[in-house]
């Protein structure tokens, strides 16, 4: 009997015009996401490679490693094109100096503000907005609609148990909607290597994780729709209730949680922090200038070399102080920011849409951790770069005043850019992606379980007349 009802449920959904239209729209959007995402990745990769080459070319003819204008770049990741996360919001380029604070600039949205206004089409958008709405539109009348139609009475005039009916409803709806949608997703999977996107095994597993969490998220709205439909007598009422819940979950709660946490936890602004840093910098510059007065050359032969060594010592000391101060104020801001973020994330998790966003961006490596990871790796590279400069030239750049002395008549050899240590960005490991996604995956499981259970119990008491 369960099989008969399951078959009917699937047939009922896939033979409706509502499904045909929704399926066509979703399939086009999914395929477009993969196609545009792959293209966007390939374009970004070309731009990245060109920028790296340009950086190396800019070193042509330079004879001193302290004279180079070295920049490092965040390489594009294949999955970032499919789940943007914050990848387009953060700066991708960093001017590298051996000392001092590192600042990333030139984000994608900064380069093309039009994208910031309308955002890119990605899997997150498809699942978070389109598919959840699709679930609501197809299933808002799953139970009460059958009562209004009169088919519920006719069904229950047969030897059908309520448990079998509601289970077939849930399993049938899920199968009827999700299985067809796996077709454009599978085509999208094939499209990636065909278009030349180099996917690693971590990328493939992460992509599967994104699709799995998308299905789980979709299933939350499916079970919610069935629960609301079994709790209301009229389909117009369940539609209205679901629309309100959808708007609250997808649009209001994620934004409101940020606003609320912003009110509850005070985070000093970047301007405040910069002003503090500038103030300290002015103070420390005065000390540096005074210290410069203490320079006493021991001989007249190599006075500039002695001065540079003297200054490197002062600069290193000054950089240590500035770095310490900056790190302290940055850390204070970061701590407040983390507290605010933590509160905002915890509040937003009331909405399954937020949980799904956090899971998919974690799997794609485009979560809020991306900026931190990039900065930390750039910071580690800065040390390698500073050591390299010291090894080559005896001092590093970024500390402040320095004199580069050229001996008259001595021809200096140009530097060899291939000696420059390479900056290799390491995307998060699969293990760390899974670990970041696990709590929110758990939340989606809990939502599914709760809505399934209350929907099931509600239907056991549903008035079948």
């Amino acid at each position, binding site marked *: *009997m369960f099989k*008969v*009802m399951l*078959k*009917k449920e699937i*047939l*009922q959904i896939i*033979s*409706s*015009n509502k499904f045909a239209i929704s399926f066509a729209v979703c399939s086009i959007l999914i395929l477009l996401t993969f196609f545009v995402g792959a293209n966007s990745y390939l374009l970004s990769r070309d731009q990245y490679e060109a920028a790296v080459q340009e950086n190396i070319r800019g070193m042509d003819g330079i004879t001193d490693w302290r004279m180079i204008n070295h920049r490092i770049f965040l390489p594009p990741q294949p999955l970032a094109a499919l789940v943007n996360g914050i990848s387009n919001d953060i700066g991708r380029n960093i001017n590298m100096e051996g000392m001092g604070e590192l600042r990333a600039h030139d984000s994608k949205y900064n380069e093309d503000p039009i994208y910031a206004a309308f955002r890119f089409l990605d899997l997150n958008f498809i699942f978070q907005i389109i598919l959840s709405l699709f679930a609501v539109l197809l299933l808002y009348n799953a139970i009460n609609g059958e009562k209004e*139609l*009169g*088919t519920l*009475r*006719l*069904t*229950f*005039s*047969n*030897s*059908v*148990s309520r448990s079998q009916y509601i289970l077939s409803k849930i399993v049938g709806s899920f199968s009827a909607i999700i299985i067809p949608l796996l077709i454009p997703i599978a085509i999208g999977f094939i499209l990636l290597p065909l278009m030349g996107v180099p996917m690693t095994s971590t990328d493939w597993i992460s992509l599967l994780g994104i699709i799995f969490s998308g299905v789980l998220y979709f299933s939350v709205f499916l079970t919610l729709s069935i629960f609301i439909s079994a709790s209301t007598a009229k389909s117009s009422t369940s539609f209205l209730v679901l629309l309100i819940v959808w708007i609250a979950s997808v649009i209001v709660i994620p934004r409101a949680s940020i606003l609320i946490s912003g009110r509850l936890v005070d985070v000093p602004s970047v301007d405040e922090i910069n002003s503090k840093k500038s103030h300290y910098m002015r103070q420390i510059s005065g000390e540096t200038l005074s210290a410069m007065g203490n320079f006493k050359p021991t001989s007249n032969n190599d006075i500039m070399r002695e001065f540079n060594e003297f200054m490197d010592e002062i600069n290193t000391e000054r950089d240590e102080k500035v770095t310490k101060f900056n790190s302290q104020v940055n850390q204070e801001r970061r701590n407040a920011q983390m507290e605010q973020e933590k509160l905002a994330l915890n509040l937003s998790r009331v909405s399954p849409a937020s949980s799904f966003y956090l899971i998919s961006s974690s799997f794609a490596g485009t979560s809020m951790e991306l900026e931190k990871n990039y900065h930390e790796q750039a910071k580690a590279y800065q040390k390698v770069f500073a050591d390299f400069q010291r090894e080559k030239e005896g001092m590093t750049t970024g500390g402040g005043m320095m004199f580069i002395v050229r001996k008259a008549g001595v021809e200096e050899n140009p530097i060899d850019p291939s000696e420059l240590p390479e900056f290799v960005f390491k995307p998060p490991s699969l293990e760390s992606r899974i670990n970041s996604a696990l709590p929110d995956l758990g939340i989606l499981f809990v939502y599914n379980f709760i809505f399934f259970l209350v929907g099931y119990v509600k239907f056991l008491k549903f008035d*079948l*007349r």
Partner: protein
Amino acid sequence: MDSNIENNNKKPILEAINLSKRYEDNALALDNVSFTIHPGEIFAMLGGNGAGKTTTINLFLNLIEPTSGDCKIDGVSCVSKPLEAKKKVAYVSENVMLYPDFTAMQNLDFFIKLGGRMNLSKDEYKSVLKRVGLQEDAFNKKLKGFSKGMRQKCGIAISILKDAPAILLDEPTSGLDPKAGAEFVNLLKELKKEGKAILMSTHDIFRAKDVADTIGIMNKGQLVMKKKQSEIHNEDLEQLYIKYMAGYMENAA
């Protein structure tokens, strides 16, 4: 031999035993109703809106539970063994609504299988659809374009194909045109000949008199009159109906 005497020797298929139903708002929808319907017998329940006719059918279908009493289908209690009891009954509602995006054949296939008959062939579906008078070109058309009469024919086809010993009809002729109504009556007579026990709730006094073996009049949840057709053969049923309804109201007053 008189069919009533013959029936008395047979086991009843549909039995209402002191059936009462009081809803949560304390309204008494059914008050101690008892009747039996034997194989090959049609029992027509007459009564106004809210008289308790649909409540009686709902109790047989276990869509609601009785406050007291019991109802049985072929000896199986609808209260304690509803799934078992419902295997033995087919149901046609006042306004048959099937799945509008399914064809007549797809609707039949689903509800027949739901009724437990898994191995019927498409030809058997078609022959019953023909028997109930549905035009052949409509068999594979979606239900959303069907008239009420056509949907009703599909509903009856489902109940015939289920081949249950009992049939419950909830105002089956309401809204049908005279031709469709007459066809329906003929079909009922055929089902009766096949030995089905039929409980029919209706407002249609004339068709009830034409087809029913027993006529019951219900008012405010009570079965205020129950007579064999032979007892009312020469009576004006309309007058009888008005008399019983009025008499009951006076008594109630």
